[in-house]
């Protein structure tokens, strides 16, 4: 590891992408992710890469489709309204079995919404970023170090399973600075992409990158094969952090920025003698079912804390299967919950249990 530096989340992520071998970035301006594009525009020419400001989010994601087809590590970034525009391209990328890295620095919605941090695109990222049966590999960083570390992880998993990766960040993580270390520069060996459309050189059969299958049976078989890969990802790639969970009566479940706030609240609860803990899903898809299920036996109450009106809480309920209580606390529209607010919710649950 190198020296610790202070960097904004957006800039750290962009630098991490370059260090991971990304040489093709396509984007369109939108707050609060603009620093990613600005950083890329400065750095890419110096490393012989390509920064291109596209005419729209729609064009940008399709440039990523083209670059990924060519077999290179490509990337785009945006914030919530821009991600909606990209959903067409994301569906095609998934349907074409292409890896690609897509960053969402979330802001409040719906519509033009606001520009302050939010987590209201959880459903979009994990359930339906576009039409059709498909999933993205979704990573939720909660520190700037994770903004860095998840870039290469996202590429590696995405290329292994030929699935697009989303890093679901938010305005807080994008804008804040925190000390960060970059891994020692290493030539990351990328798996050979025998499927890439980079010219057959008259040495192999032609490759086709395609998502069109007119015969229903062919399409069904293909989608089923893709879902077998999804099962492998579910079995091997679930990630979550557990904090003081082992003896907890009340387990807060929160990801990203709201997990940071929740961690403070859990500390406050412990100081007040309440056995609280925190499960922080790191992969939002695959959802860390195993971690939640493991905690069910000793947890009386799960409390989901999100910066939305209650989205991930659905997945927690599915894992808990009615065996424990599951409640929700959230702020939305760009409001960030305070540790005190979350602590009060924990206290209420604790008092209810005492009765």
């Amino acid at each position, binding site marked *: 590891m190198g020296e*610790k530096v*202070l960097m904004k989340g957006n800039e750290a992520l962009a630098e991490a992408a370059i260090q991971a071998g990304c040489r093709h970035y396509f984007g369109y301006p939108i*707050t*609060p992710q603009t620093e990613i594009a600005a950083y890329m525009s400065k750095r890419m020419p110096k490393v012989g890469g390509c920064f291109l400001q596209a005419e729209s989010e729609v064009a940008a994601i399709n440039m990523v489709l083209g670059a990924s087809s060519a077999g290179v590590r490509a990337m785009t970034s945006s914030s919530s309204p821009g991600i909606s525009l990209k959903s067409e391209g994301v569906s095609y990328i998934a349907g074409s079995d292409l890896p690609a890295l897509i960053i969402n620095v979330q802001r409040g919605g719906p519509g033009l919404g606001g*520009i*302050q941090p939010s987590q209201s695109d959880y459903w979009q990222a994990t359930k339906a970023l576009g039409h059709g049966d498909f999933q993205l590999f979704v990573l939720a960083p909660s520190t700037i170090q994770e903004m860095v570390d998840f870039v290469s992880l996202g590429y590696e998993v995405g290329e292994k399973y030929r699935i697009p990766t989303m890093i679901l960040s938010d*305005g*807080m993580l994008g*804008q*804040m*600075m*925190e*000390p960060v270390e970059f891994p020692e520069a290493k030539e990351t060996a990328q798996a050979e992409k025998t499927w890439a459309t980079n010219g057959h050189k008259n040495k192999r059969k032609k490759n086709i990158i395609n998502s069109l299958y007119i015969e229903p049976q062919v399409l069904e078989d293909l989608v089923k094969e893709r879902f077998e890969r999804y099962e492998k990802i579910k079995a091997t790639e679930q990630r979550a952090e557990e904090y003081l969970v082992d003896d907890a009566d009340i387990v807060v479940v929160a990801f990203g920025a709201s997990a*940071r*706030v*929740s*961690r*403070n*609240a859990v*500390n406050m609860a412990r100081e007040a003698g309440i056995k609280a803990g925190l499960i922080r899903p790191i992969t939002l898809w695959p959802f860390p079912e195993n971690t939640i299920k493991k905690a069910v036996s000793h947890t009386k109450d799960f409390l989901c804390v999100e910066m939305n009106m209650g989205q991930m809480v659905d997945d927690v309920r599915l894992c808990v299967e009615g065996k424990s209580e599951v409640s929700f606390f959230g702020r939305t529209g760009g409001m*960030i919950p*305070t*540790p*005190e607010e979350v602590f009060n919710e924990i206290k209420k649950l604790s008092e209810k249990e005492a009765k």
Partner: protein
Amino acid sequence: MKTCNILLAGFGGQGILFAGKVLAYAGLIDNKQLTWLPSYGPEMRGGTCNCSVVMSDESIGSPLVVTPDVLIAMNLPSLEKFAGKVVKGGTIILDSSIIDKKVERDDVNVFYVDATKLAEENGMEGLSNIILVGKMFKELGFCSEEALFKAIDKCVPARKAEMVEKNKEALRIGMGQ
């Protein structure tokens, strides 16, 4: 020091974010955990601006400072907005050249620094922010003196290298108040 929550607030253009960055770098050099979170968006364009800095010996949860241990206020709207949020026994440092009001609380330590006037008198316009940081260091000693001065070296961009010494001088002026 367990955790120190610092909030800097003022007008856009007063160097709020820069002062926050100096504090953050000082913490980094001293091997502390820290976060720096700016306000962003339209409010940056000439409106009010604020910046949260959290320094701690432990890993930091929320980077958003809601109830500051230390408030550095550089205009009246900021003081009015945040003075009531400062924790009991906390510290408020304000630029009394710009804010001609007294803080109506007796459960916090308040320091009135004629920062803008001091900056002008010493030929360092625009460095009232750093004078206030110097004062904060004198009163709270939140990091080592060496780290604070090194932080200036880190934060002043290379194209403004001539400003390094002026910033350090501003720190000294603040520390003398």
